[in-house]
């Protein structure tokens, strides 16, 4: 049977494998090799120098875990070391290398005794394995297969030959190895045969090395997100207490009504005193500023001049607010809100279980990984030069917050949100204590949590999201505060915060939870849209909306629906549920027709990722047709060229892929994707220096575009491949990063540590 298997594959193999691996040549080479290589060795047998070199050499295997790499390489190297030490003792004749090779082979096989020793002849048997017939005339007697299964193949065959005609029908499982055995045993009743698979062009009899002791290592397929996942530790709890024990004060950030509770409401009215956060659980003493940190207070109060702040003093309910804040509370929440509105119950009497009581769960994230790296690699002096904005160096208000965000100092921005929330009475340790919410406090929470997610600090975000439950507590609705927000209806929780809340679990390996939450949001969006289409207000009430208002609201909610569907599709893609992901992306086209080209191209790339090039091409053709109908020729469109490049890439045609990326650059010389991708193609073409030169010059010319983690990762990978001076070159990149990037820069892409 082995002979037969050699006949066909040759022609097919040629297509995929370079000619030198032709099986017949291999075997010839192999023999020649053993005799040729000794000459090489003897001519350079300055063994002392050799040894020295081998020790100095560092085997750089780009491997996912540096530890396993060492485990893999070192033992062999050291084995070899021993062999080569013997070298000088042996006569300098042509046998030397051959002998060493043999010894080494033995050593290698000794490392995997099961694989090398037992395997070889077992395999021979398997080559001639009989795939047993099940002619379904007889059912297997229950006793038969069990003793048989654990036996080796030989005994199985014996049984076969001894059997009477009637027994012939008993399915016999041939077994490759112990590893497969267990599985095979389980499969006996259905009569299936494990079938030997091997490479079509393989010549030697043992393809099926039993790898029973080598478990399938789950090395994840390369994915940057995995690689860059930041698991940086939260500051120890002691830090929190040091800095936050004093500030238990409550300060309303921007709501004038809440800011001066005494003036706004006489103390005997429980209804009005509720929004001051006293509630039933706070004694008035506790809410009063005990040790008012004077300076921050002043700063904070100066922060929100009512005119500048779009969120403050929103007493006049605009149409814009109405459609933006609209939400459908759950039945329980709705009941509570109605009873508050009709003054049947005061918020004071509401069970605290039903309230959202958030508080900071960790203290400031302070720290700048770029600076730390500079200190380590470039010295203190260089590190001193690194100047980034911190929470202290900006205004203690929304403006300062925006400045930190736009300069990519997200860690500092998280710190600032912490300060502002502390001032609002929702600081560290305040979780679980009743509080009152304002438009601003929820916006602050949204920004804080969004930044934590952007920083990949998912656990922290989850911790702080937790008190918000499913964002449906009655005190998260405007109706809960009739005196503070008279007449205002809807949810204080920004829609984007709902999406964020839904998206978060997928980053913590709970994608199903993400889908559940997204579906809940989606159904509310759909209900609101159908209310609007039926002539009702968003929440289903009979309210007259002007036509303009209705259309604007429909537009807003359609865009929200499409945002939710994007999240769903993204989540499905991360779950590798490609079928549903593709369907969902496709259905977004209806809502975002102007994104048709991007979505179809994206779907095509999903198919390329799976390996289904034909279907990918179909989607890419749709993109091209769309471009032609717009009057552009296909070649003028960058996305068409980009798609073509990806198809070439998937056909292993790096040369044409490079040409396509280059023609994108003719149309759009600054296109960072095309530049980067062209450089990547060059590497696969064996042109490391050119590739490196191209990327390097891009980074120097236009750091704003190219100091991106994906580009830097590629660049540092090539540095490692190119020379032993990669660390110096990486340090140069670090300096470039230090001049431009904020504290949120992910230094892992520099691969310095």
């Amino acid at each position, binding site marked *: 049977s082995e002979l037969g298997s050699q006949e*066909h594959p040759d022609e097919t193999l040629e297509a995929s494998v370079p000619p030198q691996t032709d099986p017949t040549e291999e075997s010839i080479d192999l023999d020649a090799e053993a005799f040729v290589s000794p000459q090489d060795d003897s001519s350079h047998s300055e063994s002392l120098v050799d040894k020295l070199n081998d020790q*100095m050499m560092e085997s750089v295997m780009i491997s996912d875990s540096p530890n396993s790499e060492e485990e893999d390489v070192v033992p062999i190297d050291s084995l070899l070391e021993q062999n080569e030490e013997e070298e000088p003792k042996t006569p300098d004749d042509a046998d030397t290398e051959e002998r060493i090779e043999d010894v080494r082979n033995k050593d290698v096989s000794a490392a995997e005794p099961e694989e090398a020793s037992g395997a070889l002849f077992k395999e021979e048997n398997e080559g001639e394995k009989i795939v047993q017939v099940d002619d379904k005339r007889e059912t297997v007697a229950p006793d038969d297969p069990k003793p048989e299964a654990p036996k080796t193949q030989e005994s199985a065959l014996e049984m076969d030959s001894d059997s009477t005609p009637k027994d*012939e029908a008993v399915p016999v499982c041939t077994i490759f190895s112990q590893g497969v055995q267990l599985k095979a045993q389980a499969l006996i009743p259905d009569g299936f045969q494990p079938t030997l698979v091997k490479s079509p062009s393989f010549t030697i009899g043992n393809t099926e090395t039993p790898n029973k002791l080598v478990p399938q290592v789950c090395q994840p397929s390369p994915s940057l997100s995995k690689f860059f996942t930041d698991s940086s530790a939260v500051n120890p709890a002691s830090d929190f207490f040091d800095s936050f024990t004093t500030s238990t004060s409550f300060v309303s950030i921007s709501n004038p009504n809440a800011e001066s509770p005494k003036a706004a409401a006489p103390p005997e009215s429980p209804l009005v005193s509720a929004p001051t956060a006293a509630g039933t659980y706070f004694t008035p003493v506790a809410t009063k500023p005990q040790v008012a940190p004077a300076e921050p207070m002043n700063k904070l109060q100066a922060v929100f001049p009512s005119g500048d702040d779009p969120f403050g003093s929103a007493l006049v309910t605009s149409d814009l607010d109405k459609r933006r804040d609209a939400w459908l509370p759950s039945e329980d929440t709705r009941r509570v809100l109605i009873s508050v509105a009709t003054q049947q119950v005061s918020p004071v009497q509401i069970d605290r279980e039903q309230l959202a009581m958030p508080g900071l769960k960790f203290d400031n994230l302070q720290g700048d990984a770029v600076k730390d790296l500079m200190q380590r690699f470039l010295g203190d002096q260089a590190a001193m030069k690194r100047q980034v904005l911190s929470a202290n160096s900006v205004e203690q208000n929304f403006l300062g917050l925006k400045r930190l965000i736009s300069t990519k100092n997200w860690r500092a921005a998280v710190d600032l949100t912490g300060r502002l929330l502390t001032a609002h009475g929702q600081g560290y340790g305040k979780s679980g204590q009743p509080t009152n919410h304002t438009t601003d406090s929820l916006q602050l929470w949204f920004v804080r949590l969004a930044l934590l997610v952007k920083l990949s600090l998912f656990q922290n975000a989850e911790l702080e999201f937790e008190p918000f439950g499913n964002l449906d507590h009655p005190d998260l609705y405007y109706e809960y505060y009739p005196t503070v927000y008279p007449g205002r209806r809807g949810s204080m929780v920004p829609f984007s915060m709902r999406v964020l809340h839904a998206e978060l679990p997928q980053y913590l390996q709970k994608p199903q939870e993400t889908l559940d939450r997204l579906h809940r949001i989606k159904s509310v969006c759909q209900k609101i849209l159908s209310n609007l289409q039926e002539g009702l207000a968003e929440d289903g009430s009979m309210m007259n909306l002007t036509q303009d208002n209705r259309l604007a609201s429909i537009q807003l909610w359609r865009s929200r629906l499409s945002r939710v569907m994007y999240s769903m599709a993204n989540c499905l893609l991360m779950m590798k549920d*490609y079928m549903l992901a593709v369907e969902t992306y496709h259905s977004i086209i209806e809502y975002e027709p102007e994104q048709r080209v991007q979505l179809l191209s994206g779907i095509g790339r999903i198919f390329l990722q799976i390996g289904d090039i034909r279907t990918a091409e179909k989607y890419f053709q749709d993109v091209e047709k769309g471009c032609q109908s717009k009057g552009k020729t296909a070649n003028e469109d960058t996305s068409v060229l980009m798609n073509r490049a*990806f198809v070439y890439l998937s056909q292993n045609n790096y040369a044409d892929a490079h040409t396509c990326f280059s023609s994108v650059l003719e149309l759009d010389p600054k296109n960072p994707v095309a530049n980067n991708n062209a450089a990547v193609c060059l590497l696969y073409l064996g042109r490391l220096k050119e590739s490196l030169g191209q990327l390097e010059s891009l980074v120097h010319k236009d750091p704003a575009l190219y100091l991106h983690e994906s580009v830097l990762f590629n660049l540092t990978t090539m540095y490692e*491949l190119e020379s032993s001076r990669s660390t110096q070159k990486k340090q140069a990149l670090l300096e470039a990063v230090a001049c431009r990037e904020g504290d949120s820069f992910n230094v892992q892409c520099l691969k310095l540590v």
Partner: protein
Amino acid sequence: CDPQQSKQTVMRLTKPTLFTNMPVTCEDRDLPGDLFIRLMKDDPSTVKGAETLILGEMLTLPQNFGNIFLGETFSSYISVHNDSNQVVKDILVKADLQTSSQRLNLSASNSAVSELKPECCIDDVIHHEVKEIGTHILVCAVSYTTQTGEKLYFRKFFKFQVLKPLDVKTKFYNAEVSLTDEVFLEAQIQNITTSPMFMEKVSLEPSMMYNVTELNNVSAGIESESTFGRMSYLQPLDTRQYLYCLKPKPEFAEKAGVIKGVTVIGKLDIVWKTNLGERGRLQTSQLQRMAPGYGDVRLSLELIPDTVSLEEPFDITCKITNCSERTMDLVLEMCNTRSVHWCGVSGRQLGKLSPSASLSIPLKLLSSVQGLQSISGLRLTDTFLKRTYEYDDIAQVCVVCPYTSPES
């Protein structure tokens, strides 16, 4: 003086991956205003105009060695770099792959490069389709001469494991009406890697005796649709069943009637692709089938209805073939089972049957039980040797009750 003048690095070239980004958005009237969307638009890795789409277009190089599976192509970048400030001469770079059974030379060229200037490198991209499971060691050797005429030589070893990508199980079914001697092959193919696999081709290459029909498409009009639906990929640990029908070629058909023992059916050829077209190909060993043991006398069916009415007699035609080397004198007995009741006389003489000869006999029977019923209970006794052959579970019929159908 640094003795280490040239340095060699090796990197496995799996396919690059597409960068995925993590969209965090907000609306105009939220606190950050347009800040988040501006950050996303400025990010070079997002898809412009559809920044919320996570799958971008930016290619990133492989970050780890990853897994390599039997049938895939191992590609590697080998770079030898002159780190010294002197020119080195006669550089020879060799890359060999040592498996448990053989050693292969993978270098594109075996000729030495005459000189390598400082800061320059010699690059080679090697490819090898892996054909063995287990430990592989890539041996990279570099020899060169320094300016002082000193000859230096060093080697490096990179070890990796080749894993099995697929689990293939096969099962044969014989056609009931064995006039045609059709054989059905069911192949269960399981993806035992950790990534999805696109099955580009799973075909059966029949041996010379058979013609094959693939039964993995349902034709609907002109276009035929795969039985696996639109998405033809296999998730990790997913199993898929492929079905093939094999018909002996006419020149073998008659022989097949009396063929005994092991026959070679053919082999499965499997081509798959993964990330960005990473390709793999495997073939099974020759699938062998034990022809059903007909014993001395073969009883096959020439005619049998698929559906019959409850308690109504129906006809079948049996073909009895003498597969032995001697003449037989046969008596046919018909034994009723719980559901099958034979009509007519049991124990009738069929007369003499010479070797390879066959005869057809029509039989009548009825079933007293509804549902899928097995036809069993035929006994042939060779009066010469006093040997009885039993034929049970010859075929199945579907027994329906005609009175419950809406027509009646």
